[in-house]
């Protein structure tokens, strides 16, 4: 049976279709989830995609965190359901306290859109096993609230437990603490990152690289082997 991966659409989500497409290209079945859904339609994993959920009018991700779909999602994520948060999805996961820290406006206050070099720091999460630790990849980045911050104790904990999943290389585009681009929870089933792997899955579009595809093949492999 094909793995079914849910993609939540909130009002203001932008990358739901790209994410669904990336899932399909990896060989899994994308399942559209709506922010008002009260159940997760028995999907095997969920991706919270990029965009500006509910306009991000309070703080990025703060309103989405209280939508009906988040209730079962938070509960099941704590029980081990693999969840990937990309950009706004990452912000929602921090607001939901499924991942530590939070995102501030970029330190230079500009919206950035660039092809960003990253280093994969943790290749043992549910979403990164098709990478190798230390691998350098290029993934598009586009946001204005991308500065990852956490208190020193949280940062020390993330570093010592190997939970910094991705780090910015060459340039830190937004002032993030410790050049952090993405983090994982303790169990490794919940991962969040600011850059957009779903925009780097086909050679014909974007930068011509497919460095983002392993996210979606990693989870597929994990689910099939589960």
């Amino acid at each position, binding site marked *: 049976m094909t793995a079914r991966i849910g993609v939540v659409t909130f009002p203001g989500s932008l990358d739901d279709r790209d994410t669904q497409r990336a899932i399909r290209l990896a060989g899994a079945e994308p399942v559209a989830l709506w922010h008002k859904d009260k159940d997760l339609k028995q999907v095997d994993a969920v991706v919270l995609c990029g965009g500006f959920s509910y306009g991000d009018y*309070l703080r990025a991700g*703060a309103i989405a965190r209280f939508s009906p779909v988040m209730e079962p999602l938070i509960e099941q994520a704590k029980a081990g359901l693999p969840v990937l948060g990309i950009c706004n999805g990452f912000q929602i996961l921090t*607001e939901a306290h499924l991942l530590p*820290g*939070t995102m*501030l406006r970029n*330190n230079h*206050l500009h919206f950035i859109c660039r092809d960003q070099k990253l280093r994969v720091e943790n290749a043992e999460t549910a979403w990164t096993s098709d990478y190798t630790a230390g691998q350098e990849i290029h993934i598009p980045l586009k946001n204005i609230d991308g500065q990852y*911050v956490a208190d020193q104790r949280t940062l020390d904990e993330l570093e010592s437990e190997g939970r910094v999943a991705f780090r910015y290389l060459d340039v830190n585009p937004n*002032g993030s603490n410790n050049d952090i681009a993405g983090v994982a929870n303790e169990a490794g089933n919940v991962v969040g990152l600011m850059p957009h792997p779903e925009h780097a899955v086909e050679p014909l579009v974007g930068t011509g690289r497919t460095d983002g595809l392993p996210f979606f093949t990693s989870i597929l492999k994990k689910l099939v082997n589960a």
Partner: protein
Amino acid sequence: MARVVVDVMLKPEILDPQGQAVQRALPRLGFDGISDVRQGKRFELEVDGPVDETALARIHDLAESFLANTVIEDFTVRVEEVAEAVK
């Protein structure tokens, strides 16, 4: 009816790029002598019924879980006197 004001500010140790941008613009506008600017948010909640301890406690919870992100922000809750509307 009463008004409760929730003020949300970034914690002192958190960089406030918006406040800094405002502060950097001040000399250009001819305002000297202002050494720092921090930018926050103010929420004005119009509350039906009396603002008793229970109501304030609920608003405190609301501020803590939703209006402020306590990872980076501090907040205060206070009741504001509202002038009686002219009938």
